């Protein structure tokens, strides 16, 4: 999953980005509204964490402009707690709202919910034939209750395909959602991950549709 974090306080941005990367997300960052809206419009993120108080273009404006084009799930972060602000946020099109200071675990959990809902699925567990279970809350995959050892990237790949099961997901899309701007774009990195997952779970777990992409049935 790839997320965008827009926050002007550098130390806070660094901490959140690091925590999310370590949780397996690909994370892009922006320190002001202009940069934020540019990136949000350019790439399809699975979720956007948006601070309300930004220099230049503020969070509200970024959200409004984004909503003209995309329905990317947005979680707003703010230091203001007034009920009016919450309502405004939700009415303007935010999907969730967290006030600072927030608990990091709560942030991560809410992002997970956002992404699940964004993909149209509310369940936290996805079951795929042959007893394979993807637990999105724990970010693990298991077969017959035995957990499968996947790296963060491998899990992200599996999760994404599982959330779009039955659909063919193009390589480009997978690249966009698994790697962030900080990664070198090595085009066969994706194939390496797919191959590793097949080794660990099963040859037919991920199906290849030549010229189109990958899918999980």
């Amino acid at each position: 999953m790839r997320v965008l974090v827009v926050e002007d306080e550098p130390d806070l941005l660094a901490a959140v980005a690091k925590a999310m990367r370590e949780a397996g997300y690909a994370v892009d960052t922006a320190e002001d509204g202009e940069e934020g809206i540019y990136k949000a419009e350019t790439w399809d993120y699975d979720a956007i964490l948006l601070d309300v108080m930004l220099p230049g273009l503020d969070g509200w404006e970024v959200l409004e402009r984004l909503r003209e084009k995309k329905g990317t799930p947005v979680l707003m972060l703010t230091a203001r707690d007034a009920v009016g602000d919450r309502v405004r946020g939700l009415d303007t099109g935010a999907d969730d709202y967290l006030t600072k200071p927030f608990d990091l675990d709560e942030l991560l959990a809410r992002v997970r919910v956002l992404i699940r809902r964004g993909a149209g699925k509310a369940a936290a567990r996805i079951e795929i034939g042959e007893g394979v279970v993807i637990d999105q809350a724990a970010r693990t995959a298991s077969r017959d209750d035995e957990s499968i050892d996947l790296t963060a990237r491998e899990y992200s790949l599996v999760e994404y395909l599982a959330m779009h099961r039955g659909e063919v997901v193009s390589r480009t899309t997978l690249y966009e959602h698994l790697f962030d701007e900080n990664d070198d774009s090595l085009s066969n990195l994706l194939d390496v991950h797919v191959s590793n997952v097949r080794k660990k779970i099963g040859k037919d777990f991920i199906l290849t549709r030549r010229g189109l992409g990958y899918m999980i049935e």
Partner: protein
Amino acid sequence: MSGFFKSIRWRLQLWHGVLLVLVLAGYGWTSYRAAMRHRMASIDRELQRHSAVLIKTLPPWFPRNSPSNEPSSEESMELRIRPSAPLLRLFEESDSYFLLVAFLSEKSYRSPGCPEDLPIPEPFKKAAHFRFETRGEFREFAQPGGRGYRVLVGRNIGDDLAEMRRFAWILCGAGGGVLLVGLTGGWWLATRAIRPVRTIGETAKRIADGKLEERIDLADTDSELGELAGVLNETFDGLHDSLARQVRFTADASHELRTPVSVVLAQTQTALKRERSGDESRDTIEACQRASERMRHLVESLLTLAQLDSGEEEVVRETVEVERTARETVELMQPLAVEKGVKLVTALESSVRCEGDPERLAQVVTNLLSNAILHTAPGGEVRVSVTREEAAAVLVVEDTGEGIAEADLEQIFDRFYRADRSRGSANGGSGLGLAITKAIVESHGGSIEVASVPGEGTTFTVRLIATPDPVQPR
């Protein structure tokens, strides 16, 4: 009982009642006495008159050539008396009047109406003496009649006394009636007068219980109580505003703290999620330190403001050389200016003094200077000048920086106001610097103004009360 006396209405009533009773009693008593005296006086006059006439018209009792000095028998006494004045008939026939004539020999003539126990009057020493006496129901007047005999004229005043007693009762009754009416009227008046006080009390209680928007509503706003209500309402308005300001201030302050706190929280929670290398930990700690510095700065600013607000700060009043304070501050700011590529220029007049707290005034200069430097692009200039204009010590800080938009100019001295909404969070500013500066200047009895052209620069002008030059001895 003490509760009884606490009520103003009852106390008013009590005093009113006591006063009324005293006045009525005094008036009644005086009336009674006056009436009594008047009546007695007229009765006395009458008795005296009768007596005088009697003495004149009665025959002398001692014929010139009688050997003894008195009549020989009672018969002859009567004979002598009878042919005299018709006045005698009054005494003969009257129920109320009576007459006693007493002779030297202790013989006496009594009219039919004489009371049985009427004593014979004592002899008089002088011819002009007379005596009035009241015995029970009889008023008696005795007078010497010449040659040793005495005439006593009296009257039964029983009826008069009864009438006076009736009068006394009427007075009491009337007085009681007046007292009742007075007390009732007084009670009614007191209730009416007290009612606005109760309204004030009830409204005040509601306000104290938390309904801060209520105000006292009295129909009559010109009376003393109306004025009181007006003053109280103004006080409540002031308190309400003051409370609202405090609430806003507290909200703003806690809001400001949220950002550094969230940095510390996020950094530490992330760091603790797994094993960290020394370098990673160091980064985390440094980020926490930066946030803590911001919090400290904020806390100090808030404390300063609170002190200035409450006026609790110990007032330091020394003679401050404004020029020296400005110069020292400029020197302190030099490194920052160099770092930002901004040139510092000074035009400082000496012998400009004012009374105040040197540290606080230094804070003012520091704050204005650092703002100017930070808002001016490299290559720009900041000019500090200190001059004397009549009775004012004037400090001017102008820069060639980015300027302040007109819309922001009005609010720039407000607490927590930052012209660029989030600038402070990265730069460490909290929006309190100018608010503190203004508070310090005003606590010194001075004023501060700002003028700015966006894109060209900003000028802050501080006016303080200059200390007059010491008088030079000639």
